[in-house]
């Protein structure tokens, strides 16, 4: 499996660390909403199909990436920087994904 890092280009999956479901929303640190914290810590979407997930290029530039990947075919549909919650960080990222 190759993941196209917006900085580094296409790299082997062994350079990346999987950080799981990218749909989860972390409550504000001061939040006392137990349901929201439980959902953040324990609930996963786990679809059979396109999955929005976070990877870190830990063996490369160390950027956190938002990756859309199909869990049945392992095809990678898009990659972008995860920061700011943007779907794609710049045109380069979109061009390569």
């Amino acid at each position, binding site marked *: *499996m190759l993941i196209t890092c917006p900085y580094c280009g296409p790299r*082997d*999956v*062994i350079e990346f660390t*999987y950080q*799981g*479901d990218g749909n989860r929303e972390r409550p504000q640190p001061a939040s006392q909403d*137990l*349901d929201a914290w*439980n*959902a953040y*810590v*324990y*609930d*996963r*979407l*786990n*679809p*059979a199909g396109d*999955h929005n*997930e976070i990877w870190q290029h830990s063996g490369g530039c160390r950027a956190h990436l938002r990756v859309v*990947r199909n*869990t*049945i*075919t*392992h095809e990678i549909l898009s990659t972008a920087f995860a920061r700011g919650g943007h779907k794609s960080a710049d045109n380069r990222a979109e061009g390569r994904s």
Partner: protein
Amino acid sequence: MAEYSAFSLLKNALAGNKDWKPAWRKPDPKASYDVIVIGGGGHGLSTAYYLAREHGITNVAVLEKGWLGSGNVGRNTTAVRSNYLLPQNTRFYEHSMKLWENLSHDLNYNVMFSQRGCLNLAHTPAQLDDYARRGNAMRHLGVDAELMSVEQIKRLVPALDVSGSARFPVLGGLMQPRAGTARHDAVAWGYARGADRRGVDIIENCEVTGFLRDGGRITGVSTTRGEIRAKKVALAVAGSTGHVMQLAGISHMPIESHVLQAFVSESLKPVIDTVLTFGMGHFYISQSDKGGLVYGGDLDGYNSYAQRGSLPIVDEVMSEMLALFPGLARVRMLRSWGGLCDMTMDGSPIITTGPLPGMYLNCGWCYGGFKATPASGWCFAYTIAKDEPHEFNAPFTLDRFYRGLIIDDKGQGANPRLH
């Protein structure tokens, strides 16, 4: 009289083996049942078997989307053990072990359960202390466990590199002598025949595509072979749990589906006569009765429904094997394959009523589903029949995650790929 016996073998041999009945029928689905079990794997079939045998509920259908035994029951590395630390897990898996010990007789089907022991290797003093603690916890609950010295291990597994110059020198190990292996296909076929002979309909090539409802209550399923109604609908779909729950309108679960690979080598003369696990990585190995080494390691590490893995894990598993057994370097790998693991947030399973009215849920088996097959079906059948859990599966609720009652044997936290 038993269907399979020395007498029936002889009789059928003389008659040219023309009179054997198929181990299970191929019925068309009826319009309704008392219980539908979704998933014709080990757990679904054992659930149907124990529903019929223990609770007299025989108007049951088992729905399998492919052919029987095509999922994890035919894809695992066949180890059976009950060497857990936490009492909830120990009690449940020890109940399973006791069912295993009598399973071939109970089913009148040889599942080739071989109690050759399971040895966890320790490579650091701290790890050996941890194993001593786990062994004591097991013995406290009546489970067998022995701490082994390097000299004992050397006698037991001569091929293992126990020298001080090994990459990770072996300092000792924790042995469960009653652990072992079983022939996984026979487990599926034995439970299938046992259920079938008691009246259960096993329906293959029947994929569930949706749920029928009456108000909030689940009243049946729509399938590729039509609608089927039932008073109770039980899920035992392992790696497909997330997908099937989404069909029922439940989008989020404390589960991720991951792919786990397994490997078998060419046949060798006997070299390892126990189940051995590596303590400085994640690797386990045993030798099948045919002579092939059966081994595996970690998950690929990302969500997957693909039932196939990638090469980095192949490389890692082979490296781990050679760290333990340098002498196996030239053994050729025969086959590799992948299966889906329904990884929970604490590494322990879920066997419960609900979460919807009319629904019963059995999932979250992580790596450990095969050894649990008898107790999983036994407890799930009890839960379905009585509408409440047995004390063995009472801790394995779905809401434990939200009530602070997680059962995390490894102490890993809510990171499924690390359990």
